[in-house]
């Protein structure tokens, strides 16, 4: 019993330390911020925009091929792709949420918002 006590309290201390560390996590150290964050944001925005246009174009091409509506599917979905890309970039930058649709309750904005703002 007497032997177990120090172990128990050590574990407790470890748990408290872990909790404290986790609580600190969202506040990132100053040296990690800066250029690296800008780089990550740049990556995010460019990939979001490019992928949206590419997928829009591909869907349009597939629709045309399937329905024989050339060139209308391509034109419409290409423009929609650009719109979706712009919208996703806007969401990512303003932190409205990364998700399709933005019915997010402000309570859980923390977890996702943290990612949206400074990580990629």
């Amino acid at each position: 019993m007497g032997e177990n006590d120090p172990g128990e309290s050590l574990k407790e201390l470890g748990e408290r330390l872990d909790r404290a560390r986790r609580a600190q996590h969202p506040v990132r150290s100053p040296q990690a911020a800066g250029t690296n964050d800008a780089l990550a944001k740049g990556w995010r925005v460019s990939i979001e925009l490019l992928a949206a246009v590419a997928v829009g174009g591909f869907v349009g091409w597939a629709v045309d091929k399937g329905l024989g509506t050339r060139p209308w599917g391509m034109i419409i979905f290409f423009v929609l792709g650009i719109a979706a890309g712009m919208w996703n970039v806007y969401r990512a930058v303003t932190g409205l949420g990364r998700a399709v649709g933005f019915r997010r309750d402000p309570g859980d904005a923390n977890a996702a918002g943290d990612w949206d703002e400074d990580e990629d």
Partner: protein
Amino acid sequence: MAIEIHPLDQFAVKPLVPLHWGSLDFSFTNSALFMCGAVAATSALVILGSWRRDMVPGRWQSLAEMSYEFIANMIDENIGGPEGKKYFPFIFSLFMFVLFGNLFGMVPYAFTFTSHIIVTFAMAIVIFIGVTIIGIWHHGFHFLTLFVPKGVPKALLLLLVPIELLSYLIRPFTLSIRLFANMLAGHTMLAIFAAFVISMGLLGVIPLTVDIALIFLELLVAVLQAYVFAILTSLYLRDAIHLH
């Protein structure tokens, strides 16, 4: 003197054990070898880490417990509840697989399988299809309301629903391109600067310094991208389960 620089050679997939079946190529490649390595390392960490179950954890046990808690907390925050717990094994395996894939890539002469779009896309498309099935399974036809933004005039819905649908279809692509592009760019950059070290002679100290700094940046990116891959997967799952 001209030194040939091949910064992309490191991404070549080489068959180690050739294996052909008809016109199909099932060769065991260096890519497959490192994937097996990542699986073995993850298994070793978790199995050896939980072997002794000390009250005061040793190094390995600490590491295993930390990674467990890290993912458990992430799922708790992002999916939450008993629903989220169900997906812990999947997200944990995914995170560790990507993490070890990225970290093994940092070892000189190692192969980085996460720098191949087909690998990351295969993972992303499985996640995408799985999440969609889970969403439909939970909500049935109601799942489609995911694509209807709230509080928008009816006339605009005609335009917005296709855009939302496209945004949804884009997910597997952004998910896979993000990881692949980060790894590819980082490793290419390392190789280019490394080539400068040789070709610049004495002045090669400058690119060498840059390379050392880049290695630390790449280690950070390796962990960060594994984290992002896992957190996005759990966010997608949250969408499917809770419909926001």
